[in-house]
C-alpha cells in the first residue's frame, strides 16, 4: 500500500474550492514535486495534507503505518520568526514536541534526536546561536532539522528555496536529495520547476485539471512542456 493516497481531493476554504480532482499516491522513497502557478492551490493542498484544514471533498488515506504527526513539515518562514529570540537548539528541539504526549519536558532521547539532526544538517556548531541572526540558508537548515525531529519518514517542504541565493539554493537541493537517498520520502512545493524536475521522481501539477505522473511522463505531456518551456524562457 502507498504511504499516502489521495483520491478525488478538492481543497479550498469556506469561500470556495481552490483546486479539485486531485489524485495521486506517494510511495516510500518517492520525491514528489508539486508545481503550478501562483494561486493554483499548492499551499492549500499542502495544508490539507498536513490536516491543518479539512478537505472539501475526497479523501487522504495514509498507509504503511504512517500516522499523523509522522509527517515532517518545512513551512515558509513567517513574519513572527524574523525577530523571535530563540537559539538553534531550542528551535530544533521543538520539533520533538509532538512525540512528548503528556510529558512536559524533553528527555535524553529527544535531546539526542535534536543533536543528531543538527549534525545531519551541518548546523551543530550553531546550536547556541540565535535563530534570527543566521543567514537564510542556515535558517532553512535549522527548520529542516526540526522537521526531521518530528518525522523520519516523510517531509513536506513548502517552497524550501524561496528567498535564497543561487549557491545556497543548490546546496539546499543537494541536502534534500541526500535525505531522499537516505530513504526519506519528500513532497515539495516549488516555483522553481526546472531545478525541481531535476531531482524529483514524480510531478503533481496543480491546475484546473490536476496532472500526476512520473517526471519522464510529465516532460512529454502538453501541460508539462508548456510549463517547462515557459520557465525555461523566463530564465
Amino acid at each position, binding site marked *: 500500500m502507498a504511504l499516502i493516497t489521495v483520491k478525488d481531493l478538492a481543497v479550498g476554504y469556506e469561500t470556495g474550492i481552490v483546486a479539485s480532482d486531485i489524485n495521486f499516491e506517494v510511495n516510500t522513497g518517492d520525491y514528489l514535486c508539486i508545481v503550478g502557478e501562483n494561486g493554483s492551490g499548492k499551499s492549500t493542498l499542502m*495544508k490539507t495534507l*498536513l*490536516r*491543518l484544514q479539512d478537505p472539501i471533498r475526497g479523501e487522504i488515506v495514509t498507509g504503511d503505518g504512517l500516522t*499523523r*504527526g509522522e*509527517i*515532517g*513539515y518545512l*513551512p515558509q518562514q*513567517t513574519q*513572527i*520568526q524574523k525577530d*523571535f*529570540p*530563540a*537559539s538553534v537548539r*531550542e*528551535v530544533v*528541539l*521543538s*520539533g520533538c*514536541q*509532538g512525540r*512528548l504526549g503528556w510529558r*512536559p*519536558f*524533553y528527555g535524553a532521547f529527544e535531546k539526542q534526536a535534536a543533536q543528531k539532526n543538527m549534525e545531519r544538517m551541518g548546523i551543530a556548531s550553531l546550536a*547556541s546561536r*540565535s535563530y*534570527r*541572526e543566521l543567514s537564510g540558508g542556515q535558517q532553512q537548515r535549522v527548520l529542516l532539522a*526540526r*522537521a526531521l525531529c*518530528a*518525522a523520519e519518514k516523510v517531509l*513536506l517542504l513548502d517552497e524550501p528555496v524561496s528567498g535564497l541565493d543561487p549557491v545556497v539554493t543548490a546546496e539546499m537541493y543537494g541536502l534534500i536529495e541526500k535525505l531522499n537517498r537516505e530513504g526519506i520520502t519528500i513532497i515539495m512545493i516549488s516555483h522553481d520547476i526546472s531545478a525541481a524536475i531535476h531531482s524529483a521522481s514524480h510531478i503533481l501539477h496543480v491546475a484546473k485539471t490536476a496532472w500526476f505522473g512520473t517526471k519522464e511522463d510529465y516532460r512529454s505531456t502538453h501541460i508539462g512542456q508548456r510549463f517547462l518551456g515557459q520557465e525555461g524562457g523566463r530564465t
Partner: protein
Amino acid sequence: MDQLITYLQYPFVVYAMIVGCLIALCSSLLGVTLVLKRFSFIGDGLSHVAFGALAIASVLKMNNQMIVILPLTMISAILLLRAGQKTQIRGDAALAMISVGALAFGYLILNLFSSSPNLTGDVCSTLFGSTSILTLTRQEVIMCACMSLAVIILFVLLYNRIFAVTFDEDFAKATGVRADIHNLIIAIVIAVIIVVAMSLVGALLISALVVFPALSAMRLYRTFRAVTICSAVISVVCAFIGIVISILAGTPVGSTIVAIDVIVFFICWICGQLTGSYNR
C-alpha cells in the same frame, strides 16, 4: 532605609510587596509569548473588559465581584485570541472594538446606576490602580498567591509547548501538538492575570506589566529561555523597587511601577545597542 524597615513591620506593606511581585512575575512570563505573537495590546483590551465587568458587578452590588469579572474577561480573551486567526473582523480591529466598547459601557453604567458618592474617584482608582494594594486582607493575599502559583506551575509545565506554538503554530499543529487548546489555556491565564493585576496597577496600565519586561529582556538576550527568565527577573525587581518608592515617596503604586519599567526598558535598549554593535 530606616523608614523602610519601619514600614516593613506593618503586615499590609509586606502583603503589598508579596502580591505586587507575584503579579509582576506572572504577567511577565506570559508577556514574552504575547509580544512575540503580536498580541501586545491584548492586555490593554482585556483590562478594559475587566473594567466594564467591574462596573456591572458594582452596580449589581455583588459581594464577590470576581464571579462576574473573571468569566467575562476569560470569554473576551478567548474570543480575541481566536479572532487573531480567521474571522471577519481581524485581531487588532476586534481588540479595539471590544476594549473601547467595554470602557465606554462600563463608565456609562457606573454613571447611570451607581450610588457611590465619589464616582470620579472610584473610576480613577480602577483605571490607574489604587492604594487598595495597601489595604489587602490576608485572604486576598492568599488567593492572589494561589492564583499566581497556579499560573507559574502551568507555565513551567507548558513551557516547551508554549515555545513550539508561539514559534510556529502551523508546524506545531502538523506534528500533533494541540495548538488550539494551548491558545485557549494562554487566553484563560491572561484573563486571570489581568483581573488579579487590576488591583495593583489599574486597568489602564496593565499592558505595561505585560509588555515592558518582555521587551527589555529581548534587547539583552537572544534565546527564548534567557528572555523568559530575564523578563521575569526584570519585572519582579521593577515591581519591588516601584512599591518601595511609592511607599516612601507617597506616589501612586501603579504608575510608579510602570515608570520604573519604562526606565529599565531604555537602559536595556541602550545596553542592547552597545553590545549589538560590539558583536557586529
